[in-house]
């Protein structure tokens, strides 16, 4: 027995792309914040190139693995966006779960890298190194929290092919922060 007549109109859609547009602006702010730190890092490195990283070393293994992890996570989060737009809810939850797992893997590697580097804050490059990598760490962590919250709301049935923004918005925030990590990887870890 059903109480809902077949002709019932669909509920009104929320405001057009509010979440996606708001997230895009927030992602822009996040990127500017981190890129400003990268700019200051490069500026200071150019000003102190004779003493930069002479007493400290940054290993390459962890940063490379971290980049690989994030690239893989991007594939999975895009899978989640693709799946929710086609009402493939099972696939979407699986992809979101794997993304969160990979994201936590990234955070774990980042903290491990800091323990390996053991760079003192009193060194000339220390504050900028921690500010740059730390800002990205928190941005990626915020992306994961955002994704996790939206995953819970997706489980509650809030997002579907009619309203995929709930997943695509945190995905956009995640992509932007991964792109910024790629810049940090190149500027801080590779070019030293």
């Amino acid at each position: 027995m059903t109480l809902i007549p077949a002709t019932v109109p669909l509920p009104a859609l929320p405001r057009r792309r509010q979440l996606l547009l708001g997230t895009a602006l927030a992602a822009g702010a996040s990127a500017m914040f981190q890129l400003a730190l990268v700019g200051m890092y490069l500026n200071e490195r150019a000003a102190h190139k004779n003493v930069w990283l002479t007493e400290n070393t940054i290993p390459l293994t962890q940063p490379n693995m971290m980049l690989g992890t994030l690239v893989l996570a991007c594939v999975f989060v895009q899978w989640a966006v693709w799946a929710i737009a086609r009402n493939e809810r099972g696939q979407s939850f699986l992809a979101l779960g794997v993304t969160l797992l990979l994201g936590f893997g990234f955070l774990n590697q980042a903290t491990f890298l800091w323990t390996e580097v053991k760079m003192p804050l009193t060194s000339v490059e220390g504050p900028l190194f921690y500010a740059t990598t730390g800002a990205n760490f928190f941005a990626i962590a915020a992306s994961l929290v955002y994704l996790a919250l939206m995953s819970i709301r997706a489980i509650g049935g809030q997002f579907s092919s009619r309203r995929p923004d709930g997943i695509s918005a945190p995905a956009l925030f995640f992509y932007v922060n991964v792109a910024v990590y790629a810049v940090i990887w190149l500027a801080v870890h590779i070019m030293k």
Partner: protein
Amino acid sequence: MAMTETRPETLPVSADAEAPTGLSTPSALERLLGTGDHKVVGRIFMCVSLLAMAVDLALGALVSLQASQTDALLDANLITRLTMAHPVGLVLCGAIPFFLGLAIYLVPLQVGSPTIAFPRAAAMSLWSWVLGTVLSAVAVAANGSYGGESLKMSRLGHVSVGLLLASLIVGSICVATTVLSHRAAGMSLDRVPFFSFSMLVSSVIWVLSLPVLLAVVVLYQIQRPSAATLASVAFPAMEWFFHQPTVFMFALPVLGIFLDIASSASSERVSGYGIAQAAIGAAGLLSFGAWAQSALARDTAIFGIGAIAFALPVVVVLGAGLDTLRRGSGKPTPALVAAGSSIVLLLVAAVTGAVGAVLTLGDGNLSEFATGGFAAAALGEATNLGAGIAVGQFYLVVAAGLVGGLAAIAHWSSRIWSNPVAGTTAGPIALVGMLGGLLFGLPHVVLGFALPNPDVARTIALVAAIGGFLAGTAAFAGHGAATLSSLEPGSPEDVETEGTAELQGGTLEWLTASPAPQGNFSEPLAVVSSPYPLFDGPEEGDSK
């Protein structure tokens, strides 16, 4: 499973609705602190920011007054603290939050939305900004902030700047998202009212610029700086924010305010709507200055061209407004005169920068503060051309923002308050602000260009001090009028019901009752087919 995304504040309220039994009715304070109503949030933003602006203008005037005297009027350390605190306060506690508050109130009405985007984020932006403002004032008062001697209070002042920046970023995102996603049916971006469009441009520029300054704050906080380091290293690293081209972004909304008021005063459409919008967009683009932080970046041809080019969009907007007035039939109102004055102030600031760029291009002097800084220039001790010019330009832009803001209060007061006090007083107050702003800014420009002998410099600084106090008085009077209007509702005959309001403009905010009801519009809006839907006739082709 039934779910709803409708915010409580957008639900229609039934007059005979009763509170569920067992639940206590929230007190007035609880309702105030917990509100997501964009109208309440916007009013508080405006009232508090005008007070902060008044205080910071008075502090700036004190600094100029000290520069005009040979004897010490106040403790030297206090003067140093005030010198560094007042530009930060004028921008982060005054100009930007005032326009954000006005936008949080007005933009939803202009674009036909029942609420602001992310209302809880807007409320969070307000209260964290209020907290940041209070902490910043406490830090300065307790021998801290930049130039202070107390380590804890200096760091508190530094952190409070970070809190202010984060709050303003959140508020800017709410405003920009409202314009982008909450527009009424048919209102494409090229039909958005000028004030809302200028706030879209301003918000985007703020969202891209404020995080860069926040990065500087965070970096120096990580370094666990001493009080001396904050004054001698951190503050100079932040000075690009107060100078050309970034300085212009604090007054961008006055471009939209002027065009909307010109259209209303003349009951005429602005012709060349797209060109005027493009001019506002170009002004926004030219005011993005995060790239020009170092002296090296400022000593380039691009910087010089940008400095000269900024005057062009201001002239275009001024021309569009004057053309509208010429074609219209209205009389000059105090709001119109004040809005025009704010554009003139902005133009003077732009021309000042352009002339400075021409005279100093290649010398690295236009905004060269490394050889004296804001402090030296404000104290009349500038030893290079650029320092005085840039400080004067800063005051002129802030004054343009103040006068434009007061013009907006005079023009839209009937949309914001039922009490007519703010509407009737804000126009004349704005003209006092105009005079004060000119007297505050131009003497510093003269000091920068002429580098006169100390006796003449002291006299000029005295004129600047008088101007600063006048501008501060205007801001304080504006705060008083806005606060009084917020606390005291108008008499029943002052309350306009929907459809009875005297039509003062062609944009949607003039359609609804004043003050606007919950949800802003009691009836569904018709599809918008032009930038001025209220000027459109009832039948197609009957548009004015």
